[in-house]
């Protein structure tokens, strides 16, 4: 008597997988480890245990997620990383951090639930729930449209696109520096990996979705930068810049959906290149924002400034940086996506987004210099980790072309491409200078955006509803006293009457029987 088939123990399975997952895993590992070194180095000894209680599971989840072989293990690692990061967000325990953690947790739980729905439906439609073939299974299933909606929503929340932009700055601002770097570098990348595993990249028939993804990408790119320019703290700016950078990944995936056959491979390369570049650059920047310029000699501060500028430049996509490689790969993906209005718009808007990012980066660099230097300089170990991360980000620029995109390799030194990468940076510098002269300074805005207002309104609604429901179901204070209706039968049905009724009954019975005969 056999049983219904269940796969291996604990249903979980992990594997090294192909080059893409290996690259993702390597980058995530690098970021989690180096940021971890920085975090533990700069944290007070007493609180290190508490930090480990949250940081280590998040790291384990983040890395395991990259190596997942089946849907179940992907989801398990995804949840582990997401929920333990909530602890990191609520790190410094004050009311603001707790509120941020509440918002982060609510959104993460929703995105996780959506992802679970997607995985369950996909697994339901295929005999095994191994990841590799999963997207072909659900793409052909009747529920394909539904799954696409769910998956898109989940990815938008996780990667902080369009209206969910606020989720990233919340994390970067409230988590301790090292943890914030790790979150910046690796946690959003899980969303990207989910895209590669689950989105029907090679499957025809999702052209309209492709256009939608490109639109989402572009809008979050520009909205992210706009909100960044309004932000006050440097790390919030970095958060918004991550949101906009993620938009670019959406554009690449959108291209792959529009032309699955032609743009499939270049888009994949673009996403991978982009992931490596953004993970390293962003985490270096976050560490830098905390470590640089902390009470050191003039030369030291100048050195820090340079070290900070490097990854910033990479973000803008300056030539000879990992950002430039990613931009090139993205351009090649867009080019191979074939003629369609949305693709044309994307190609033309791309450089403008670089300009915007440039503006944001310059504002960030100025903000870092202006912000009060950290009281005590992070220990040498912490600074070493920062240096290593910045070095890696630079190295990625060199290693990138050879392993990922052939297009990037050919165009690395092509003057036209180089120029198309430098003018946005120059334009950004020019614009900032002009703004400075005109005393036009952007008003600093509390990291309040759609999410925080939504959060407060949501809490008020739940409290109101609970009040009404509680009022209705609160047990009535005085239990319904068993005041039985005091009836004395003598008053109700006196004996004499009863006897009379009995005689009538006797007659009735007699008559009934008599008639029956």
């Amino acid at each position, binding site marked *: 008597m056999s049983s219904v088939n269940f796969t291996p123990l604990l249903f979980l399975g992990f594997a090294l997988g192909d080059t893409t997952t290996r690259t993702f895993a390597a980058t995530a590992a690098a970021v989690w480890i180096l940021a971890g070194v920085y975090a533990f180095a700069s944290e007070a000894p007493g609180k290190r245990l508490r930090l480990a209680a949250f940081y280590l599971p998040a790291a384990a989840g983040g890395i395991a997620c990259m190596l997942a072989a089946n849907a179940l293990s992907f989801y398990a690692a995804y949840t582990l990383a997401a929920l333990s990061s909530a602890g990191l967000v609520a790190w410094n325990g004050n009311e603001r951090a707790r509120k941020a953690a509440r918002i982060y947790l609510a959104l993460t739980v929703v995105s996780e639930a959506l992802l679970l729905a997607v995985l369950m439906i996909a697994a339901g439609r295929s005999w095994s729930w191994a990841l590799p073939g999963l997207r072909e299974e659900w793409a052909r299933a009747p529920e394909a449209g539904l799954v696409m909606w769910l998956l898109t929503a989940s990815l938008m929340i996780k990667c902080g696109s369009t209206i969910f932009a606020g989720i990233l700055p919340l994390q970067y601002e409230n988590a301790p520096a090292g943890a914030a770097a790790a979150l910046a570098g690796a946690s959003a990348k899980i969303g990207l990996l989910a895209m590669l595993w689950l989105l029907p990249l090679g499957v025809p028939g999702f052209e309209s979705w492709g256009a939608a993804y490109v639109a989402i990408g572009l809008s979050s790119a520009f909205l992210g930068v706009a909100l960044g320019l309004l932000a006050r703290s440097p790390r919030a700016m970095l958060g918004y810049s991550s949101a906009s950078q993620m938009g670019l990944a959406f554009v690449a995936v959108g291209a792959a959906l529009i032309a699955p056959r032609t743009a499939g491979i270049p888009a994949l390369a673009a996403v991978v290149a982009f992931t490596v570049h953004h993970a390293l650059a962003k985490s270096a920047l976050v560490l830098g924002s905390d470590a640089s310029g902390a009470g050191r000699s003039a030369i030291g501060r100048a050195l820090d400034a340079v070290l900070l500028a490097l990854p910033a430049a990479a973000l803008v996509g300056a030539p000879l940086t990992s950002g430039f490689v990613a931009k090139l790969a993205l351009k090649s993906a867009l080019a191979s996506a074939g003629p369609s209005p949305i693709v044309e718009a994307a190609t033309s808007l791309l450089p403008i987004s670089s300009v915007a990012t440039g503006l944001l980066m310059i504002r960030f660099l100025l903000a870092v210099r202006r912000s009060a230097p950290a009281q005590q300089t992070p220990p040498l170990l912490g600074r070493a980790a920062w240096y290593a991360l910045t070095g890696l980000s630079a190295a990625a620029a060199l290693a990138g072309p050879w392993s990922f995109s052939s297009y990037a390799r050919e165009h690395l030194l092509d003057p036209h491409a180089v120029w198309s990468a430098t003018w946005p940076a120059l334009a950004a510098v020019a614009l900032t200078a002009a703004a400075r002269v005109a005393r036009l300074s952007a008003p600093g805005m509390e990291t309040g955006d759609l999410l925080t207002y939504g959060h407060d309104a949501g809490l008020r609604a739940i409290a109101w509803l609970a009040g009404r429901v509680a009022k209705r179901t609160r047990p009535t204070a005085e239990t319904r006293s068993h005041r039985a209706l005091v009836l004395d039968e003598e008053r109700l049905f006196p004996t*004499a009457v009863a*006897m*009379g009724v009995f*005689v009538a009954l006797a007659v009735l019975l007699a008559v009934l029987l008599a008639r029956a005969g």
Partner: protein
Amino acid sequence: MSAPLLYALVGAGLVSLGAWGLVVRTHPVRKTVAANLMGSGAFLILVSAARATPAERPDPVPHALVLTGIVVTMATTAVALALAKRRAAASEGHSGEGASDG
């Protein structure tokens, strides 16, 4: 109409009169008298039943029944009167030993 039928009808009259008395009257002694009346009526019906059979001699069984009936009615009267007396004594004197909560 034959004699037995007449007696049966008179008996029936007595029974209904007795029943009426038993139902309406409240004083125990009146009720006992009514009960006796009803009993006599019933016995009259039984006696008339004895004569109703066509045989020349009256059928002895109803007479046996009547005898038993008379004994029973007498016993009922005795019990009723004894209870009535005891209850009257109890209600006046409120002595009623063991007047525990009913």
